[in-house]
């Protein structure tokens, strides 16, 4: 009985593919969004998708751009560059003007290369790549591209934010990073800015760990304690960060954890109450910023998501991306990616919290306000129902992190 079943499924596919290929009509402004939506890293893409959907609904309610609404089309890339490239092909087949991706600099690098080549080879069918979270500094320096816009600070800038937020009484730090491109650049940049901005700080330990392989971080904690470090600086994400902090808290280590990603979905749950006033993260947004600065409108916007999804709105900063898009499309007066890209570069914008930001013209890197949040009790909005939430420990304004770049941008003819 089997062959028929398989065959009908197969037929179903082919039909579905065919339908998918032709049924699109250009009534909305489509943004292909590709991130892992299945497999071990599904939580990343899933959380992003939810929050972006909310933001898009909000932007569309305010009129979209050129009278058209934005529409997000998700593609699962399973954390594999090849699947991201297949998603790019689908997007260009359907003449989508944008492809967006947040997670993984390897995928980002592949996308930049592929978008460059595609746009060169198909001048009539170009696409813009919106980078919402791949932070390897190379992407807007050596590898910079006219078609790539990065809406998150890159690792070097985040490292600077982290170093700037380091309290004066901390003089001994320990570095742990994941052993791959991103971790290595965090390692390099943090050390770089420590020597530049805080020569008094001594790096007592500096380690790379294999990505996602360590199940018990206790030995590292032992080593860190033995080194006499007061703070642990890490770019780790996912289980490598959760388990690291958990092990430290369990061992009762008197440490502060400066992280890049403790605020992302899943982090607060994993850290738990033991992380009170110990865990800090550099972040573009947290839900307590608005009440802290008394911006009722922004607070209401963020609260809306919480009420709808019973979940934190840690990435409300994505709103900036869509506001930039809205502004650039309206400015270009067209949906032609080339025109939009020209309109977008150099654009300045006051974000919904009221801070200034700029999409730098020379490297397409956003320069925006950044916060250092501390995980603590007694904040207005807690994180993931833990009772603890992110309070702002430091605010670094855009003008303070306007780092130089080495980008030599090649621009196409209009």
């Amino acid at each position: 009985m089997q062959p028929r079943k398989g065959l009908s499924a197969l037929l179903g596919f082919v039909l579905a593919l065919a339908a998918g290929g032709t049924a699109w009509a250009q009534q909305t402004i489509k943004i292909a969004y590709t991130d892992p939506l299945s497999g071990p890293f599904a939580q990343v893409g899933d959380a992003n998708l939810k929050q972006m959907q909310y933001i898009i609904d909000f932007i569309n309610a305010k009129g979209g751009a050129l009278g058209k609404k934005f529409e997000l089309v998700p593609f699962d890339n399973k954390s594999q560059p090849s699947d991201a490239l297949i998603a790019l092909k689908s997007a260009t087949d359907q003449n989508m003007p944008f492809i967006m991706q947040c997670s993984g600099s390897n995928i980002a690098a592949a996308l930049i290369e592929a978008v460059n080549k595609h746009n060169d080879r198909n001048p009539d069918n170009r696409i813009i790549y919106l980078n919402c979270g791949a932070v390897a500094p190379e992407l807007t320096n050596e590898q910079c591209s006219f078609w790539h816009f990065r809406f998150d600070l890159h690792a070097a800038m985040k490292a600077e934010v982290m170093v700037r937020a380091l309290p004066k009484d901390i003089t001994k730090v320990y570095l742990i990073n994941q052993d791959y491109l991103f971790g290595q650049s965090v390692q390099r940049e943090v050390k770089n800015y420590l020597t530049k901005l805080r020569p008094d700080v001594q790096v007592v330990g500096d380690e790379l760990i294999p990505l996602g392989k360590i199940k018990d971080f206790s030995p590292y904690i032992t080593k860190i304690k033995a080194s006499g470090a007061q703070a642990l600086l890490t770019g780790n994400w996912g289980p490598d960060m959760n388990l690291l902090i958990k092990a430290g808290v369990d061992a009762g280590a008197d440490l502060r954890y400066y992280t890049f990603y403790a605020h992302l979905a899943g982090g607060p749950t994993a850290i738990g109450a033991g992380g009170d006033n110990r865990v800090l993260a550099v972040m573009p947004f947290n839900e307590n910023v608005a009440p802290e600065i008394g911006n009722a409108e922004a607070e209401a916007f963020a609260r809306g998501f919480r009420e709808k999804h019973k979940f934190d709105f840690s990435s409300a900063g994505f709103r900036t991306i869509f506001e930039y898009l809205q502004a650039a499309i309206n400015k270009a007066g067209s949906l032609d990616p080339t025109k939009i890209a020209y309109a977008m570069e150099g654009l300045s914008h006051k974000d919904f919290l009221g801070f200034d930001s700029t999409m730098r013209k020379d490297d397409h890197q956003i320069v925006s306000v950044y916060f250092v949040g501390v995980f603590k009790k007694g904040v207005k909005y807690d994180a993931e129902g833990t009772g603890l939430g992110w309070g702002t420990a430091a605010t670094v304004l855009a003008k303070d992190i306007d780092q130089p770049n080495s980008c030599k941008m090649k621009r196409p003819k209009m």
Partner: protein
Amino acid sequence: MEVFVVSLLNGLVYGMLLFMLASGLTLILSMMGVLNFAHASAYMLGAYFAFTISQHIGFWPALVIAPLLCGLIGAAIEMWGLRRVHRNGHVAELLFTFGLALIIEKVVQMTWGLLPVPYRIPELLDFPLFTIYGTHFPAYRAFMLLVSALMFGAIWLGLTRTRIGLIIQAALTHPEMASALGHNVPRIFTLVFAAGTALAGLAGVIGGNYQVTEPAMAFTMGPIVFVVVVFGGLGSLTGCFIASILMGLIQTFAVVFDVSLADLLARFGFVVTKETPFAEVLTVTLPRIGALLPFLMMVLILVFRPRGLMGTRDT
């Protein structure tokens, strides 16, 4: 010294957790020849069951109920799935468990969501048991040691003092002999598979809150368990035990020694610079590859001694 003692303790805790997972797989792999890719999934299920149960009736009942549930699921899988697949060969069995692992992962995602769940250590055990050189040793870790030691004792007694245990032991070393002796092999298989799954579930119950309970936990734990089982040798629980502890200690101590091949060569007056061929490989430090050492050791032992550490027959 300080680092040494603390690392030793931590290595033991991790090793024992590994053993709890690996012991079940050793039984299954040695007796049934099934490369059970869903074993780590049972570990994950154990953790999630325990999380849900402990939310309603507390951690202590969960400690008993969750492994039992896993065992029941294991028995069901064996009776209605694996047994059918068995006659299609080992590759079929392996793919069966592989498919099962995919399904379990998705079902877990659909039931408990994609994010980690707040499965916490019971308050009764949430205190530092003692402080050694300024580092707390959490009581929960001691509890983990205790549970796994008890379990080791229970398995050992079960295998050496009961009739069924003796049959299983015989079947471990000579799987083809058991049926010749007239025993009800299918029932023994079901029993072993269920017991193995229950052990993995128990590991999940006590490991889920020591680590993080999330849908990816099976995926990350899977390969290392195979390594332990194969390294220890098929058909040998003792080998499995030694391998588990060894792997726990190795991973812990690899972190402590910050050396690389280049340092070693420097001792002999050979200085590695950036221009040296393979400089990148030579300058990798031990902590960076600590987590990979088990795999390296498994490859080497299999190449030179295919029966593993204490195996009774070739892998």
